[in-house]
């Protein structure tokens, strides 16, 4: 089992009342409330916490990217990845991920990821995402072509990583005269690609068709099972049986020496009125053309206030009861997570430890307890349940490298 530490890197050093007064804490919430002095301190604290996480034994550090919002301080995931490549020695640097459609030049993105893979001596997991709706708006990228750009950029990057240049790329959304970057990944055929997501069925099916692991982002146990079923069916259709190495799961877990302190800090997972991507207008999260047409009717009703959020707005207590948030002492957290693992059987797990305004000392203690107590227990439990991660299972990096599908093998030869 592969166990990662994750935090959104919250930029919590702003006046929360200003956000409430404005009615939004994303996209258009003015950066006049942004304090670079506090941000400089936080960046360095978060960096030190990643180093601590490695010292405490985590397998991987999961990084992401968001824009125009206090909930996440990383507008370029590769920046922290590059730093971690130099200051850590062992942990996997897991991008979940680079938002492909935001890039107008996927060749340069491939160069950045390749550099990080080489500098880290082959520790990159190169996850890719579509990017949320707000990310499209913050970057001026057309939401109506988001999925097309995602797939085309992926195809271009993986071609760069598997075929010698120079070649010309004449696609629908990307055209490149001379693709021939002098920076290629150390890992062959290319770094493992994992795809995180929340609810898009199309993405789950596409991911299964590539044989990339799918990382469910804090979905409920029931919703996670639906995702696995969708994935497994799509996997069977292209000729392989999905196993734990194909499934990952991110969950919010805060651990402290006392239950009281853990629960108090865990409330910070609800720090922006429970909207972990910030308080926002529905159309920002889902600009027209971004989401599947099958969800159109439900969404427009929600967007004008005629229907409830299809994702629901569970309270902190409800989320604790439903194992959407886990908090407590190491023993309590281990018991709860064992239950979760038995029901979802992931080979990859991200533990989202800290959010909001949890004090630095408590963040560090949480990381120590996660790395030294919680993760070893989960690793042992996962091994008993046969939950192998992609390395333990020696899983192919992509469907085309499968050795258990006769047609694929013939095609490769």
């Amino acid at each position: 089992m592969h166990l990662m530490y994750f935090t959104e890197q919250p930029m919590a050093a702003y006046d929360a009342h200003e956000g409430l007064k404005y009615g939004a804490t994303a996209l258009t919430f003015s950066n006049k409330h942004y304090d670079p002095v506090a941000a400089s301190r936080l960046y360095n604290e978060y960096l030190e916490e990643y180093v601590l996480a490695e010292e405490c034994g985590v397998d991987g550090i999961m990084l992401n990217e968001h824009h125009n919002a206090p909930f996440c301080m990383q507008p370029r995931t590769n920046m922290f990845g590059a730093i971690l490549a130099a200051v850590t020695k062992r942990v996997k640097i897991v991008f979940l991920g680079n938002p492909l459609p935001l890039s107008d030049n996927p060749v340069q993105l491939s160069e950045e990821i390749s550099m990080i893979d080489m500098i880290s001596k082959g520790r990159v997991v190169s996850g890719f995402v579509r990017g949320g709706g707000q990310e499209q708006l913050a970057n001026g990228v057309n939401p109506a072509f988001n999925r097309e750009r995602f797939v085309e950029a992926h195809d271009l990057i993986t071609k760069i990583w598997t075929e010698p240049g120079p070649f010309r790329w004449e696609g629908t959304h990307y055209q490149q005269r001379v693709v021939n970057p002098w920076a290629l990944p150390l890992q062959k055929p290319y770094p493992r690609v994992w795809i995180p997501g929340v609810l898009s069925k199309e993405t789950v099916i596409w991911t299964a068709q590539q044989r990339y692991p799918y990382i469910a982002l804090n979905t409920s146990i029931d919703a996670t099972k639906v995702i696995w079923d969708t994935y497994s069916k799509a996997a069977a259709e292209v000729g392989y049986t999905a196993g734990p190495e194909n499934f990952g799961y991110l969950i919010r877990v805060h651990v402290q020496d006392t239950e009281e302190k853990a629960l108090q800090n865990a409330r910070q997972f609800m720090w922006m009125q429970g909207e972990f991507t910030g308080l926002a207008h529905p159309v920002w999260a889902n600009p027209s053309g971004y989401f599947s047409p099958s969800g159109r009717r439900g969404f427009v009703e929600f967007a004008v206030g005629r229907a409830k959020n299809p994702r629901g707005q569970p309270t902190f207590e409800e989320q604790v009861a439903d194992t959407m948030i886990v908090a407590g002492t190491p023993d309590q957290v281990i018991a709860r997570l064992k239950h979760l693992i038995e029901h979802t059987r992931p080979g990859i797990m991200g533990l989202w430890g800290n959010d909001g305004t949890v004090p630095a000392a408590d963040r560090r203690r949480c990381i120590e307890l996660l790395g030294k107590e919680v993760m070893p227990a989960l690793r042992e439990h996962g091994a008993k349940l046969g939950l192998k991660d992609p390395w333990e299972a020696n899983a192919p990096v992509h469907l085309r490298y499968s050795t258990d599908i006769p047609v694929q093998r013939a095609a490769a030869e």
Partner: protein
Amino acid sequence: MSLAWTDTTHEIAGGKLHLSRAGSGRKLLILHHDIGTPDRLAFYDSLAGSFDVLVPHHPGWGKSERPQWLRSPRDIAAIHAWLLADLGLSDVSLIGLGFGGWIAAEMASLAPAAYRRLVLVGPMGIKPPEGDIADQAIVSYLDYPQAGFHDRAAFTRVYGDVTTDQLEQWDICREMSFRTAWKPYMYSQTLPHLLGGIRAPALVVWGDDDRHVPQSAARVWIEGLRNARLETIAACGHYVDMEKPDELARLVTSFVNAN
């Protein structure tokens, strides 16, 4: 007076284009807004009393199929020009409403001698010297069309209690606007340079409370076109055709019929 509107479907560029048509006389091609169009409007009926009125749905809007390849208002212009050619129509006057005004100007700039008259009502398509064209992307499905009316009562007269079907339609219209006019948003950087070739006399109409397209753009249109004049409608928003249908119909009628 009851008017007989005929709905037909036309195979154009690999997709089906929806057309409503009524009346007789000189031919008017009406090009609708970015938010689509109700099937029938008092403005259309009023004009059909004295003209042969054609109201197509833009490709991808309303009842017209979406061409996946469609990328710009110039593509939409080519499709409507194709429609007129298929119908064997000439000496047509173009009535472009908002976003449709941009399409009308593209049609006329590509065939400078082809059209009889050009009426542009709060046209998008040119970067206003002051202010920006209102961006649908970050406001709700109701706020955007409502902001296009000076008087909320006029919005209610046309759309009533907005149905979920209508909201869905607006989402589809919005998606088509993004697919064809995302960047730069709702204007062309080349169109202003191409207006000068257009031979048809042009009438540019603006609501004095147009919150979608700043009236500063009117100057660019008037200066760019060879023969154009501006009419401003008092107490009126962007959707002049829906807010002041009779007034706009009178202006169009006298302008198109003038020799």
